[in-house]
């Protein structure tokens, strides 16, 4: 939740960079104009949120989904954003999938070598298409085995302690 009113503004530095990337080099953007664009962007987020939420509620869903945002763009008559956004969503999904695969790979590696250090998530595996469910099941199985081993170790610890206490 927003505690301070400035939490509802978008960072000026990022806004400035986006504007700079959008217009030709050497064009001067006045401070007032930048501030106005920044405020407009915040209001755009709210407007888009409200429209998206309407579509989610119409579908009797509590969570705003990606499709709701895209439909909202059509509703707001920003049709020119629909195609780019669809492309972005596709790329984003691919990227997330790639990250997942990468994570699994590093997890499998660390599981087999018994070192529990997470390796960094890279995007190198973004092109690898692996059946998600199958892989997930495998990882879970390995987790279970790990858990059992840990349990047995704990049991033996207790045994040792009880032995020692009976001796004394």
């Amino acid at each position, binding site marked *: 939740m927003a505690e301070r009113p400035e939490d*509802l503004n978008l960072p000026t530095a990022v806004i400035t*960079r986006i504007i700079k990337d959008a217009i030709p080099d050497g064009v001067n953007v006045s401070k007032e104009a930048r501030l106005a664009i920044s405020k407009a962007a915040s209001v755009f987020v709210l407007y888009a949120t409200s429209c998206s939420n309407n579509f989610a509620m119409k579908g009797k869903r509590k969570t705003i989904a990606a499709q709701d945002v895209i439909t909202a763009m059509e509703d707001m008559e920003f049709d020119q954003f629909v195609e780019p956004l669809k492309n972005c969503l596709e790329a984003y999904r691919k990227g997330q999938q790639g990250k997942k695969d990468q994570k699994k790979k590093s997890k499998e590696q660390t599981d087999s070598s018994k070192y529990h250090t997470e390796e960094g998530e890279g995007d190198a595996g973004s092109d690898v298409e692996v059946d998600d469910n199958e892989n997930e099941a495998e990882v879970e199985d390995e987790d279970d085995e790990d858990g059992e081993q840990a349990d047995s170790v704990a049991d033996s610890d207790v045994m040792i302690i009880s032995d020692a206490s009976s001796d004394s």
Partner: protein
Amino acid sequence: MAEKDESLQTCMLPLSRVKTIMKSSPDVSCISQEALFLAGKATELFIQSLAQVSLEKSTDKKSLQYRDLAEVVNSIDTLQFLQDIVPKKITAREFFEMLKQNEDEDEET
């Protein structure tokens, strides 16, 4: 290609901040990660197009001023929702004239 993919799947705007703004809207309970990302991306596109369209309207094409933005916001229908955020600037003299006109109309009715 890889670089292009990178720019498509990352958002320049901080998504945590976008989420804060979205959550400040009443009735919003949950936002999926994908929807949040798309909202951020859409805002990015919006900023770009607003800057570009305003520059086209600007008189000298070398600088972007507030009045160019206000002009665009007040002339494009889809930007109507911004009219209170980016109002046209008027001089005090114009304001008093408007005020006087309104008073005259009130008196007539």
